[in-house]
């Protein structure tokens, strides 16, 4: 096995171009599991931890550019105010040891339907920056996940950053598993209200072959909020509306039965989480927290 250890972005992109089969490794919390259990032995590993651009984040014209190699611990500590939805999801990743090492770039590279960051990225309308020696392109999160553990990155590309405008309204993240720590979620839900654009965004995890948005639920809730004048009045969210939203989110799922849970349980828990999340987010909106 070759081990490639570039120290600049240019070197990293050149290495990926020359070794398209090389697997990028940052925190190692996913790649190493596969290797230790001999499930997967890549022809080469590309250590991206020494490329400083990947481990930095910054603001540019109101948008956050989050380097793909920033750890979950740093997202929680440094971006909790700007990106509360992603920070909430980050708090639930693995264990403290895993959060000290794991990165959103790794979550995206693995593209597991159960990845914790995906619902938050989908709800925030995030974009994924991909670089190769041929140049840079950007893919919207909802177009990034192509299938079970398949993503839109070409073999010569590296996932270099996540670019997103912090949602203007409250955000929530919920997931369900057998315990709090060290679980692969049975179902997960991310929500962001965008009162500036009068839109609602969602992300659902572990309930379909890929992370995805619940489009019909988003449109339904945005239309109801609009027609009832709730964005302006900030009146209480009708219980029936929250429940209906939960049912519509559930309808976007297409889960399977597996060792972690049945399809029926996943769908039921998704509806419950969506109903609760929208209620919490709306309460935050009414009290003007996070707006």
């Amino acid at each position, binding site marked *: *096995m070759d*081990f490639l*250890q570039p120290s600049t972005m240019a070197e990293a992109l050149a290495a990926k171009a020359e070794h398209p089969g090389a697997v990028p*490794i940052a*925190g*190692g*919390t996913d790649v*190493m*599991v596969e*290797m*230790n*259990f001999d499930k997967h032995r890549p022809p080469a*590993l590309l*250590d991206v*931890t020494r490329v400083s651009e990947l481990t930095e984040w910054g603001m540019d014209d109101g948008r956050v550019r989050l380097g793909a190699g920033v750890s979950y*611990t740093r997202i*929680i*500590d440094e971006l*909790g105010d700007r990106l509360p939805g992603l920070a909430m999801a980050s*708090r*639930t990743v*693995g*264990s*403290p*040891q*895993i959060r*000290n*090492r794991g990165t959103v770039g790794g979550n995206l590279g693995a593209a597991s339907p159960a990845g914790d960051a995906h619902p938050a990225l989908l709800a925030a309308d995030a974009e994924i920056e991909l670089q190769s020696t041929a140049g840079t392109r950007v893919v919207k999160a909802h177009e990034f996940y192509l299938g079970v553990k398949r993503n839109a990155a070409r073999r010569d590309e590296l996932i270099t950053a996540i670019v997103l405008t912090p949602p203007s309204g409250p955000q929530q993240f919920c997931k369900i598993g057998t*315990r*709090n*720590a*060290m679980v692969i979620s049975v179902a997960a839900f991310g929500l962001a209200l965008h009162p500036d654009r009068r839109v609602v965004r969602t992300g659902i995890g572990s309930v379909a072959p890929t992370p995805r948005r619940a489009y019909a639920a988003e449109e339904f809730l945005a239309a109801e909020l609009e027609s009832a004048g709730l964005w302006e009045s900030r009146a209480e969210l009708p219980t029936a509306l929250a429940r209906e939203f939960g049912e519509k989110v559930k309808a976007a799922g297409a889960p399977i039965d597996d060792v972690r849970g049945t399809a029926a349980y996943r769908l039921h828990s998704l509806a419950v989480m969506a109903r609760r999340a929208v209620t919490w987010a709306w309460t935050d909106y009414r009290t003007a927290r996070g707006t």
Partner: protein
Amino acid sequence: MQLSVNGQSRDLELDNRTTLLDALREHLGLIGSKKGCDHGQCGACTVLLDGRRTNACLVLAVTCAGREVATIEGLAGPDGLHPVQQAFVEHDGFQCGYCTPGQIMSAVGMLEEFERGWPSAVTGEVQPAGLTAPEIRERMSGNLCRCGAYVGILAALTDVASRS
């Protein structure tokens, strides 16, 4: 390669697939860090890498050049046990002892993280002044103890936290 462990630089010749855990145990004879699950679930291999608690089974040794590794073997000082080690003894924070080095290294990292004001999944909008039992349980959730010595571990860490 050179690996800095507990303040000492060590020369090693390794296959590039060697994990940090295997480098410590098989090549440097530092067998305090344990291999429980080998995939990051159990925390028995927890070491501090540049001061941050890390599962040594999920790190390739070759990526640790130029970084500082701290293991259980380097924790006690010339004046005796580290306060966390002492508290584990006083409060019976173990039974078989297999998870203990990982628990202790994790606790050392955890106390420092709390000092820095890092929130956990159970922290609300304002961090509590001291480490409560739910905070300790959540913050130590990356370390499993199959004997079930959690009661003693919680007592030990509550004691250390109240003294620091």
